[in-house]
């Protein structure tokens, strides 16, 4: 993607890239769901299916030195940020070759080289951290942006409030991305917020903020790009509210009593991947052969990652306490 006079130009190649990135996440997660039922992946597994446009769109706007904080629903973010799929899959398996040596599992994927700071399973727990990293950047006169993803459920936590105030007060280089999928577990937004427009809440702290269609990857990318430019420009923090939906349950345990299947189906028909695919197809830019090639490439990568994870070793029990402190036995 090129930006010119703060305007975003999308060409077909770029759109296809976005499509492939989203598809890669979708297929990866579908595989994870399968592996979960096979008990290869354990613990909690929170699928990002339906929300891929948010991670993919936002990550497009970032440079190598920008940093990312995410939630427990972060496989998509990790992949979009460029972590190796092998490492991510191995982490899901709890293997020593995983991105966190298997210690973290699906909720705690880290890759400091990619400036991917997890993977936080305390709702709103990463916001203050992201503020702090942005403060460090500012103090060190770095232009890098810190992006912090969180769900709309996190907005009710005191940490949201404290973090937005600090970020704006100190004019920090941070982009807050609210993934508004309408539910926090089984709690609909109307039950958790008196003001349901999250971007308006952010505006009340003085942040630049807007809501976008989180099912439209192009819209997400271009809004994130504008904001990152503004942030790097020193114009202070921003918040992007991405309206989206998760097609699956909150985690693999969720029986989804709290919503109607019609609602799910309706959102599915507006999904980010199908939307872009249809547009490309309708405009004659994606033929079945090419689609097949993409699907095959994605499938290959996923199969390889499963193979890699399966065949990897687990950490030795004798190294249980590795990494509790810096000096712990390596």
């Amino acid at each position, binding site marked *: 993607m090129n930006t010119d006079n703060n305007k975003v130009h999308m060409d077909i190649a770029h759109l296809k890239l976005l499509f492939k990135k989203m598809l890669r996440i979708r297929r990866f997660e579908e595989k994870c769901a399968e592996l979960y039922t096979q008990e290869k992946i354990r613990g909690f597994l929170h699928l990002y299916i339906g929300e891929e446009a948010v991670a993919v769109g936002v990550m497009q706007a970032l440079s190598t030195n920008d940093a990312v904080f995410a939630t427990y629903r972060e496989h998509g973010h990790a992949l979009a940020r460029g972590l190796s799929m092998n490492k991510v899959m191995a982490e899901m398996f709890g293997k020593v070759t995983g991105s966190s040596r298997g210690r*973290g599992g699906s909720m*705690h994927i880290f890759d400091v080289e990619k400036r991917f700071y997890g993977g936080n399973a305390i709702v709103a727990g990463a916001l203050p951290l992201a503020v702090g990293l942005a403060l460090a950047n500012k103090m060190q006169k770095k232009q890098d942006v810190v992006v912090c993803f969180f769900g709309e*459920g*996190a907005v009710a936590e*005191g940490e949201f409030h404290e973090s937005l105030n600090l970020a704006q007060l100190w004019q920090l280089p941070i982009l807050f991305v609210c993934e508004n999928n309408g539910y926090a*577990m*089984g709690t609909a937004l109307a039950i958790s917020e008196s003001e349901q427009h999250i971007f308006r809440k952010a505006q009340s702290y003085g942040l630049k903020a807007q809501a976008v269609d989180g099912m439209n990857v192009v819209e997400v990318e271009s809004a994130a790009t504008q904001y990152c430019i503004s942030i790097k420009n020193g114009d202070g923090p921003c918040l992007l509210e991405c309206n989206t939906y998760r097609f699956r349950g909150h985690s693999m345990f969720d029986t989804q009593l709290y919503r109607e299947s019609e609602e799910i189906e309706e959102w599915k028909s507006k999904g980010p991947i199908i939307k872009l695919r249809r547009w490309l197809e309708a405009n004659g830019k994606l033929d079945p052969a090419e689609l097949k090639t993409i699907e095959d490439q994605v499938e290959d990568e996923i199969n390889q990652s499963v193979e890699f994870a399966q065949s990897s070793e687990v950490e030795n029990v004798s190294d*249980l306490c590795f990494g509790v402190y810096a000096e712990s036995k390596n």
Partner: protein
Amino acid sequence: MNDQSITYREALKTAISEAMRSDERVFLMGEDVGNYGGCYAVSKGLSDEFGADRVIDTPLSESGFVGAGIGAAMGGMRPIVEVMTVNFSLLALDQIVNNAATLRHMSGNQIGIPLVIRMATGAGKQLAAQHSHSLENWYAHVPGIKVLVPSTVADARYMLAMALADPDPVILFEHVMLYNESAAIPAPKDCPDMHQAVVRKSGNDISLITYGGSLSKTLEAAKELDSHGISAEVIDLRCLRPLDTHTLYQSVEKTHRVLVVDEGWRTGSLAAEICALIAEDCFWSLDAPPSRICSKEVPIPYPQHLERAATPQVAQVVEAAMKLLNREVPA
């Protein structure tokens, strides 16, 4: 009462709905207790019976809604507040310690807080370092609150009512590995008072003291010890604050040896308190050092083999007990 088996989860639900039916001041509040049915499905269906006004889905605001529970108790209600897990309760700890635990004393006994806070605790589900810890000992440290740990289905069934009848704030811990356990329920009169520790198996050679998620492991270890000719007494603390030292001391006076099994991290654990108490008050009865099996000092890791290695296991209990009795440990 019949003797059909029910699960720990169902026992809790029965206790909650019974309380809500019999006292309209009682209500349930917490994240996803209503529409979702509770993160561990304890309150599934309750909102159908009692409505959203008495089974209140709160926003993600642990400090806010726990504090609101305290305020509601001050205002004449009998709230049951569910915090999903003890890990998240840190966000509400200021309200619990600085308000719930102090208001009665600080006001010269004018204010009572008849509040019950329920939370899940413990490891075993591979939920890693932000979802698996056991901090019951922290709560047991705080004057002004009481701490209960139902470790059997029967206690899950009856302790809540006792907690609700108490005029002071009570924290109730539910170990995540217990929810699916099932058992038949005794008559209410057979459930000991919430302040009492209970001898779950009597024995003469060593006292194994435990609570919560470690009880079943400890009982299993006791069984194995039996097969080695060692008669272990197993005590379930049930109430971590105030501690029923009488029951503990009685056991130690008989067995002269004690091993505490506690899923908390070792340093500063509740097990340390039990060992210290016994060392201090039963010193001359002891024939071996008071000992403990706790979790390793590591944030609980995700993979199953490491999670197991981090938390107390049956084999460790058996081995430690045998050592305390100077028996050779079988390979």
